[in-house]
C-alpha cells in the first residue's frame, strides 16, 4: 500500500506564501459576492409582493388616506389619485398592493377580526364578497349614503349589500364574458371568422360551443386545441348560471344542482374529446400556450384581453377577434369597502365613492381594461370607442357592454371560490389527464366537502 494522500487541509504547512493566501482569499470573497449578488437578484422579485407604491409626497397637515389593494387595480396607473388630490388639496392618497388575492384575503380577514392593520379603504374580490358581507359587515361603514345606487348595475350593488340593507362595498369593475378567438386558426379549420357569424355558431347554448369545437377538431391545425383549458370552460358555463353553488336561503346546493352537474359533465366531455388543452389557467405552462398559439378560443372577460396581450408574442397582435358568449355571465370584478374604525373613515368613503363613480370607471377602463360596473359609463367615448391591440378594430367596449346588460343576477355564497376551485383543480382537469368524468366528480366532491366541513 502506497502512502495515501493526506486529506487534511489543516495539516498543510501553516506558513504558505502570503500572496497565494491573499489571492485565494480574494477569490473566495469574489465567489461569495458573485453568489450573493445572484441570490439578491433572485429575491428581488419578492419585493413586488408588498410594494409600497406611494403617490404624492406626504405633505404636512394633509389627511392621509390609504388603500389596501391586490393585483392590478390600476387606480394609480390611470392617474385617478393625482386627479383627486388636485380636487381636494388637503388629501394625500397612498396605496399598498399585494400581488395575489390568495395572500391578500386571509390577511384582510385577520385584520378585520382583530381590528388592526387595516387600510382606510380595502379592496374585496367578487369571490370573497359574500363572505365579507355576511360575516364582517358590522366592521364596515355603510356606503349607501356615499355611492349612488342608480349608477351601478343592480346585481353588483346587491352583492355589496347585506340582508339588512347595509351597503358595505361599492363595485369597481365587472367581468362580462365574451369569447375571444383566433381568426387565423378558425380560418384554417374552415370556420367562419366574422364576429357576428361566429357568435351565431353557438348563440344560446354551451353545447353548441362544444359542437363547434368538434368541427374545429376535425380540421384543426396540428398541435392546437379548440379551447385553452377545462377550467376556463367550466368557469364560463357556471358564471352564466343564475343559481350555482348556493340557493337563495344560503344552503350549499352544488352537489344537487343539475346546472352544476351539467356544466361539469359538458366540460368533462369536451376534455375527454380533446377539445381543451390539458392546462391549468394562469400557470406558466398555460401562459406559454398563449404565446405559442396552441388554442383557438377562450372565454374572455375584459381583463383577460390585457392578460393575453401580456403573454403574447408581438406578431399575434390583431389576430384575435371577439364574439358574444353563448350566454352572458360575469367572471371577476372587485369592490371597495371602508373599515369603520379607520381614522379617516368618512374621507375614505368619499374617495371610494368617487373612484367607483361612472366617470372614473370609464377612465380606468381606457387605461387598465377593467370594465365599469356603472352602465352610465357605457355610453362614454372611453368605453364606446375602446379598442385593443390584440383584437384589431373590434369595438370591444360595445361588445362587453352588451354582455354586461344580460348578466343574470347570480346567487352568490361565502365559499364560492373554494367550490369553484375544487370543481376545476380537483375535478375537470383530471379528465384532461385521462380519468373518467365520474372519478373526477368524486374527487372534486370529496375535496370540497372536506373544505366546507367546519
Amino acid at each position, binding site marked *: 500500500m502506497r502512502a495515501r494522500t493526506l486529506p487534511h*487541509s489543516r495539516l498543510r504547512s501553516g506558513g504558505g506564501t502570503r500572496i497565494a493566501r491573499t489571492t485565494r482569499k480574494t477569490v*473566495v470573497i469574489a465567489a461569495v459576492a458573485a453568489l450573493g449578488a445572484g441570490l439578491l437578484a433572485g429575491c428581488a422579485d419578492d419585493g413586488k409582493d408588498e410594494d409600497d407604491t406611494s403617490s404624492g409626497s406626504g405633505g404636512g397637515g394633509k389627511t392621509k388616506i390609504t388603500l389596501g389593494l391586490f393585483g392590478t387595480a390600476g387606480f394609480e396607473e390611470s392617474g385617478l389619485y393625482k386627479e383627486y388630490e388636485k380636487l381636494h388639496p388637503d388629501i394625500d392618497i397612498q396605496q399598498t398592493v399585494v400581488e395575489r388575492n390568495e395572500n391578500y384575503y386571509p390577511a384582510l380577514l385577520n385584520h378585520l377580526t382583530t381590528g388592526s392593520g387595516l387600510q382606510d379603504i380595502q379592496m374585496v374580490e367578487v369571490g370573497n364578497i359574500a363572505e365579507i358581507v355576511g360575516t364582517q359587515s358590522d366592521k364596515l361603514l355603510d356606503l349607501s349614503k356615499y355611492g349612488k345606487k342608480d349608477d351601478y348595475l343592480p346585481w353588483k350593488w346587491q352583492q355589496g349589500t347585506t340582508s339588512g340593507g347595509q351597503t358595505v362595498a361599492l363595485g369597481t369593475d365587472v367581468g362580462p364574458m365574451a369569447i375571444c378567438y383566433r381568426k387565423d386558426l378558425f380560418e384554417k379549420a374552415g370556420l367562419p371568422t366574422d364576429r357576428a357569424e361566429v357568435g351565431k355558431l353557438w348563440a344560446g347554448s354551451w353545447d353548441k360551443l362544444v359542437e363547434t369545437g368538434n368541427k374545429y377538431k376535425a380540421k384543426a391545425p396540428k398541435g392546437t386545441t379548440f379551447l385553452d383549458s377545462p377550467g376556463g370552460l367550466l368557469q364560463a358555463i357556471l358564471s352564466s348560471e343564475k343559481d350555482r353553488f348556493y340557493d337563495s336561503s344560503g344552503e350549499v346546493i352544488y352537489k344537487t344542482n343539475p346546472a352544476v352537474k351539467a356544466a361539469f359533465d359538458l366540460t368533462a366531455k369536451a376534455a375527454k374529446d380533446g377539445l381543451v388543452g390539458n392546462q391549468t389557467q394562469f400557470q406558466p405552462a398555460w401562459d*406559454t400556450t398563449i404565446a405559442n398559439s396552441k388554442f383557438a378560443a377562450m372565454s374572455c372577460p375584459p381583463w383577460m384581453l390585457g392578460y393575453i396581450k401580456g403573454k403574447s408574442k408581438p406578431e399575434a397582435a390583431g389576430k384575435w377577434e371577439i364574439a358574444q358568449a353563448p350566454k352572458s355571465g360575469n367572471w371577476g370584478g372587485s369592490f371597495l369597502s371602508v373599515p369603520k374604525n379607520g381614522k379617516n373613515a368618512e374621507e375614505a368613503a368619499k374617495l371610494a365613492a368617487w373612484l367607483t363613480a361612472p366617470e372614473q370607471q370609464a377612465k380606468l377602463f381606457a387605461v387598465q381594461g377593467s370594465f365599469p360596473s356603472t352602465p352610465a359609463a357605457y355610453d362614454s367615448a372611453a368605453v364606446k370607442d375602446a379598442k385593443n391591440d390584440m383584437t384589431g378594430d373590434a369595438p370591444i367596449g360595445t361588445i362587453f357592454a352588451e354582455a354586461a346588460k344580460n348578466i343574470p343576477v347570480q346567487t352568490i355564497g361565502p365559499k364560492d371560490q373554494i367550490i369553484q376551485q375544487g370543481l376545476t383543480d380537483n375535478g375537470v382537469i383530471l379528465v384532461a389527464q385521462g380519468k373518467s368524468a365520474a372519478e373526477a366528480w368524486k374527487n372534486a366532491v370529496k375535496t370540497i366537502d372536506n373544505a366546507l366541513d367546519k
Partner: protein
Amino acid sequence: MPTRHDAAAPPVKGGAAPARPPAESATEERRRARLSRRWQRDVRWSPYAFVSPFFLLFVAFGLFPLLYTGWASLHAVELTAPTDMSWVGLRNFTRIFDDEFFWNAAKNTLIIGVISTVPQLMMALGIAHILNYKLRASTFYRVVMLAPYATSIAAATLVFVLLFGRDYGMINWFLGLFGVDQIDWQNGTWYSKIAVSTIVIWRWTGYNALIYLAAMQAIPQDLYESAALDGASRWKQFLHVTLPSLRPTILFTCVVSTIGASQLFAEPLLFDANKGASGGSQHQFQTLGLYLYEQGWVNQHLGRASAIAWTMFLILIVVGIINYVISRRLRASS
C-alpha cells in the same frame, strides 16, 4: 461566592489601617453585610435575568401559541370570527382518524421524507469524502456546495417548477433526447413526489456534506495510517474507519433531516402555485404542513387546523423517541 468578596475587600478598604475605631467598624460591618447580601442576590438572580429574554420570547411566541393551539383544537373556530369559539371536545381529533386527507398527507410526508433524506445523506457522505482529499480550489467547491442552502426556497422552487414543466420544461426536453415520453411531473402520483424531493435534495445535500466534512477532518490520521499498514483498501478504510467515526454526526444529520422532512411546506406549496395548498389535483404531494395550512388559511377552519398541528406534534414526539431508541442501540453496539 460571597467569601471571595470578603477576602478581596479588606486590602482595598481597611487593610492598611492598623487600628480601626470600633464605631466605624460596626457601620463598616453593616455596610459590608448589606453589600454582601446584594452581591449574593446579584449572583443568584442575575443569570436568570440574563437568560430571560429568550424565555420571555419563547413563552410569548412558543409556549403560549402551543397551549392556545391546544385550547383552540377543542373548539370549532373559523378564521372569519376567531374569538367566537364553540366547544366540540375531542371531535377535531377523533375525526382525524377517518380523515383520508390527513392520512394521505401523512403518507406523502413519509414518502417524500424517505426519498429525499436517504439519497441526500448518502450523496452528502460521498461528496464529503471526495472533498476530504487534497483538491485544487477546495474552498471554492465548499462555497459552491453551500450555495443552494443560501438560496431562498421560494426562488429555487419557482425555478424548479420551470425545469419540471411538462410541455416546455428542460428536464423533459433532456429526457426526450433519449426517447423518453413527456412526463407530467406535477400530476403524476410518484413523479410529483420525486420532483419535490429533488428540490429538497438539491437544497440540503451541500449543507449535510459540510457537516460530514467537518467531522471527517476530526478523525485522527493515524487510524488511516495503521489501516493502510494492515493492507486495507480505500473503500475498506471508508467503511471501517470513516463511517464508525462519523456515527454521532450521521445520527445528528438524520435527526435534523427527519425534523426538516416532517415540516416540509414551502416546496410543495409553490410546486403547483395555482392549486395552492391542495398539493396537486389529487393531493398527490400534499404534506402534513400543507394540509394544516390549507385547513387554517384556505378553508378557514382554525379549530381543525389546530387539532392537526397538535397531532403532528404528537407524531413528532413518537418519531423522536424512535430516533432516541435507535441511537441508544447503536451506541450500545459500538
